[in-house]
């Protein structure tokens, strides 16, 4: 097998044993990028030069025996993570030329762990979207079917991992932007608890919902990345100072005795029958493995989408006010005066979906509407959180489909925002409640498109997600299933 096809932990073994060098691994990944990137378009920016230097430093460290968690591992970063000296566009024209003078905390942590950065992955503009079609830099295609979307907003990261254009990647998840593309691309994606991974240097979309997390080929890699990126950051006020467990220690705990909650509100009309069948089969596998299923209720589920589309645009309308053409980023060339400069820069610098959300957000915060929209939404959000607190009295983890459908076709939903927003209906609640969630592959549709199984757990219970995810992966032998589909169905192979 080519090196690019291996996992983080497989490569760790080979690098430490001296079988391969970091330069070999990077060269392999870049060969793969050269071969498939034209078709997939997972990246906005490739970091070939700095990656080569990082790989050389990794090899030097390996020679000295100074091995850290990710020494020599090629990782892609969603282009929402600030990278010192390297363009960070957030998928937007307005930040098309923005070069941050600082690293995001997660980027610092990955650097310190010895990682090699392959490039900046494509995304929906300012993470607003579920298909990676709103990027100023073009559409990313699903490696399993190049006519279909990879999901979003972290579609570039998910596609890069699925297409072996990196070994692992980071994404961000505000309403499902890690889990949904992970499901649609057949990879593992985790959204940690709000406050678990630092947001410093993550370009803000909706500050009370955003969270950075990993995309990996299997659950063990997810645990490895979480071990590196999780933890308190004094530069973020909403970061929580709770000890980070060794997530790898949850890998082999199995599911015997684990109580799995099945929320009836998540198995409803609108869920594709193939998706539903696949997820139900996955739950049966877990039961066979000794898990106990409990039917639970999350009564405020039906309000999640409405609450989300008030809270997220409200915060976004304020977070995106800084892109005004004054200090950095895009400025319209021929403005008459200050007001005209603002208007032109923002009208042409932002895409349609971003402008739609800025307008929604501005509206719901306006004098006279605040109480009816933002305040009410905040109150309902508290009820949604309470639903989960009550549910986790009855169960350890909750299992649901990640996305109501498998990957849809490019352009299929771009003219229908509401249909697009429904893509996140099963993932949004975790962001509103601040709880962690993971999506693991659980099968394929008849058309050969991946399906994702979502687990949710209580605050700071990422360990339980690793435990359930790893157990399922082993019981269902999904790694073998994916490998077989790769050989037989993936158009890139």
């Amino acid at each position: 097998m080519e090196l690019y096809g291996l996992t983080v932990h497989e490569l760790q073994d080979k690098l430490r044993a001296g079988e391969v060098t970091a330069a070999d691994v990077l060269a392999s990944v870049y060969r793969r990028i050269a071969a498939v990137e034209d078709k997939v378009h997972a990246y906005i920016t490739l970091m070939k030069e700095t990656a080569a230097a990082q790989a050389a430093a990794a090899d030097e460290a390996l020679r000295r025996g100074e091995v850290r968690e990710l020494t020599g591992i090629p990782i892609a970063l969603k282009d929402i993570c600030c990278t010192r000296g390297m363009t960070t566009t957030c998928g937007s024209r307005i930040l098309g030329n923005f070069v941050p003078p600082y690293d995001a905390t997660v980027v610092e942590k990955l650097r310190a762990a010895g990682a090699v950065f392959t490039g900046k992955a494509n995304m929906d503009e300012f993470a607003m979207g579920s298909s990676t079609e709103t990027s100023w830099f073009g559409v990313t295609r699903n490696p399993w079917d190049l006519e279909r979307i990879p999901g979003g907003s972290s579609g570039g990261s998910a596609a890069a991992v699925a297409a072996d254009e990196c070994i692992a990647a980071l994404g961000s998840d505000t309403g499902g932007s890690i889990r949904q593309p992970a499901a649609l691309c057949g990879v593992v994606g985790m959204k940690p608890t709000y406050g678990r991974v630092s947001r410093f240097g993550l370009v803000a979309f909706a500050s009370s919902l955003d969270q950075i997390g990993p995309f990996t080929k299997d659950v063990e890699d997810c645990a490895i990345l979480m071990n590196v990126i999780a933890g308190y950051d004094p530069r973020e006020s909403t970061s929580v100072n709770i000890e980070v467990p060794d997530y790898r220690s949850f890998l082999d705990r199995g599911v015997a005795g684990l109580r799995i909650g099945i929320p009836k509100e998540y198995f409803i009309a609108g869920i594709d029958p193939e998706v539903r069948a696949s997820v139900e089969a996955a739950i049966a596998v877990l039961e066979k493995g000794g898990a106990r299923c409990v039917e639970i209720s999350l009564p405020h589920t039906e309000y999640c989408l409405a609450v989300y589309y008030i809270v997220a645009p409200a915060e976004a309308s304020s977070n995106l006010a800084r892109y005004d053409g004054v200090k950095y980023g895009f400025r319209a060339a021929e403005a008459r005066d200050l007001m005209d400069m603002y208007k032109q820069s923002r009208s042409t610098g932002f895409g349609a979906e971003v402008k739609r959300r800025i307008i929604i957000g501005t509206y719901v915060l306006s004098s006279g509407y605040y109480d009816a929209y933002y305040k009410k939404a905040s109150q309902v959000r508290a009820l949604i959180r309470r639903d989960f607190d009550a549910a986790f009295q009855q169960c350890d983890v909750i299992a649901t489909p990640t996305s109501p459908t498998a990957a849809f076709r490019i352009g299929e939903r771009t003219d229908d925002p509401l249909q697009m927003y429904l893509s996140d209906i099963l993932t949004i609640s975790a962001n509103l409640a601040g709880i962690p969630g993971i999506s693991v592959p659980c099968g394929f549709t008849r058309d050969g498109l991946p399906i994702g199984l979502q687990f949710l757990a209580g605050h700071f219970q990422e360990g339980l997600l690793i435990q359930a995810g790893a157990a399922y992966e082993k019981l269902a032998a999904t790694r073998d299933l994916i490998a077989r589909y790769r050989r037989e169905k993936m158009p890139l192979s």
Partner: protein
Amino acid sequence: MEFEPVIGLEIHAQLLTASKIFCGCSTGFGAPPNTHTCPVCLGMPGVLPVLNRKVVEFTIKMGLATNCRINRENGFARKNYFYPDLPKGYQISQYAYPLAEDGYVEVETEAGRRRIGIIRIHMEEDAGKLIHDEHFPASYVDLNRTGVPLMEIVSAPDIRTAEEAAAYLRRLHEILVYLEICDGNMEEGSFRCDANVSLRPRGQEEFGIRTELKNMNSFRNVQRALEYEIKRQQYVLEGGGEVIQETRLWDDAQGVTLPMRGKEEAHDYRYFPDPDLVTVAIDAEWVEEIRRNMPELPLEKRERFLRDYGIPAYDAGVLTMSRALADYYEEVVRLCGRPKIAANWVMGDLLRFLNEDRRDIKDCPIPAASLAEMIRLIEEGTISGKMAKEISEEMYRTGKGPKEIIEEQGLVQITDEAALIPVIEKVIAANPTQLAQYRGGKDKLFGYFVGQVMKATQGKANPQLINELLKKMLA
């Protein structure tokens, strides 16, 4: 119809912290543009604010000093508007949940003492500043001030006269400076004031339509602007017109308020809780600790000076103008035990020296101990008041102690009869005509002899002793 003015003041005080409210940048004034900046105060993508604890501490101090309730849970909100000096497109401020509420201060005017309510005190960040090119159609942005911590103090509409407004302003100013949380510099803008003013028929409960006054950068201007605006509104109302709700700028040169130029847009700031900052939970013990360590406030100090030192109210007022001056005075009194004489010296010569040099009492070259010693020397009769004047000047100039100067210049007063008698004898002998006239009943000539003796001793003779001896020897 008789109208009653209703005035409320909003004060912005820049806090004397070393670093900004949400990042580690310096708050220093006067640095080259954009040198006191970092990604956080520049509002770059993805950066986050972390609250400076000192800002909370300083605001609690002010809350306690003005009898406010300290809200155990308070929080920040975003005030959204576009302006080039506001890099994030919003100002982080407190809105629904301010740190301190429902306080008051006592102010004194000629009309007596009144209590002025304080609605709220909250924390916020300052904006940057625009510099307009005079020769070229361009503007520049300096973000050094962006993120400098401010405290906003909002009074209740309890103020009734321009004089009272100025008194309220002075009271808050002196409290802030006493607490050492604001330097109070109005010219540099570290203490700014806006006023809301309206008129209503006396006896009417309901408020009239108000105007907001800005651009008053001294106590005097606040008073003048309010006096003008009250008269203007009265004129409008008496003429049967209506006051327009607007913002007006004080024009110092013309002595008038003028409507702010340009169309005024109705701002909707779309306040909402800042999701990047958590609720500020104030520990009750911390508040108590701050309370225990509060310095004595100016009004309390003034009352204590009246009570303990028996000095006039005017003196107590002058001596408590600043904490350092009051401390200096108290030290002098402690060492010499003469409160009134000490007050005269501190308020008289010492403040005159300092004012002439525009020097702060903290940099006074005369240590309190030296001044106290000099007062003791006068009281003991070692030096005369006249000599003391010279000595104090010399002390101020050189920083030397009074004894050293006396010794150097041979200034000791002659208090010894045996030394003085021969001098007086000589003076009498040298003035036979005047002696005859004096003995003939011309009493006024006594002064002449005193003067001659003083002259002969180069002013070193103790005047009381001269008097006694002369009376005996001229008789």
